[in-house]
């Protein structure tokens, strides 16, 4: 299984905090997974439309969208951070 978490406007567009899916496979990149999820509904397509505004973390480490999922258990998708 792969747990996917959504934050900030990504969460609002999709309408949920996260979900668990069957692990798509270690070689699948985040970007390819986003393409697949974009077909899951209007909110997904909206959230993932502009990849330049999207950031990701795999098992709590920031990674690029071209990173393969590998053996990760948790993928988080969110906008660039704005703390401090």
């Amino acid at each position, binding site marked *: 299984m792969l747990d996917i978490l959504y934050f900030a406007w990504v969460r609002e567009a999709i309408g949920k905090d996260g979900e668990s899916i069957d692990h798509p496979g270690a070689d699948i990149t985040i970007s390819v997974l986003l393409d697949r999820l974009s077909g899951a509904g209007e909110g997904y397509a909206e959230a993932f439309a502009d990849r330049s505004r999207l950031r990701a973390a795999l098992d709590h480490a920031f990674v690029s969208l071209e990173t393969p999922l590998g053996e990760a258990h948790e993928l988080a998708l969110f906008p660039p951070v704005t703390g*401090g």
Partner: protein
Amino acid sequence: MIRIHIGEEGIDPAALLVPLEQLGGGAVASFTGIVRGDGGLVSLRLDHYPAMTQARIEAIVAQAQARWPLLGITIVHRVGAMAPGERIVFVGTASSHRAAALESCAFLIDWLKTSAPFWKKECFADGREQWVEARAEDDAARDRWNA
């Protein structure tokens, strides 16, 4: 002494400075971030990624420790809802001398703004709400430390 805290309660800089002053060094520096009321902002909401936030801040703290001879670091970041004028973040550093304390404090807030999973949402008097966009200036402020 390393102290990292993320929570919804208010921040008391005076109380946070005391333990940093008691570490035997000659210098304590601090930064306090305040919610600005620009453009009719009535409240700010901070979301974060709890499972990741603490670990990311610990990693930023470790970088500061590797770079400067520090006796203590305190980082407190608020999450949840807050109003203009309220404190949102506190960074305090203690060292034997001022340069290390001042520089590491600036380093920590620059990295905290751009490398820890927090997101701000602004709520305005007219009912508008918007997520704050990341600013290129903040990335530039962080990247100057790599020069």
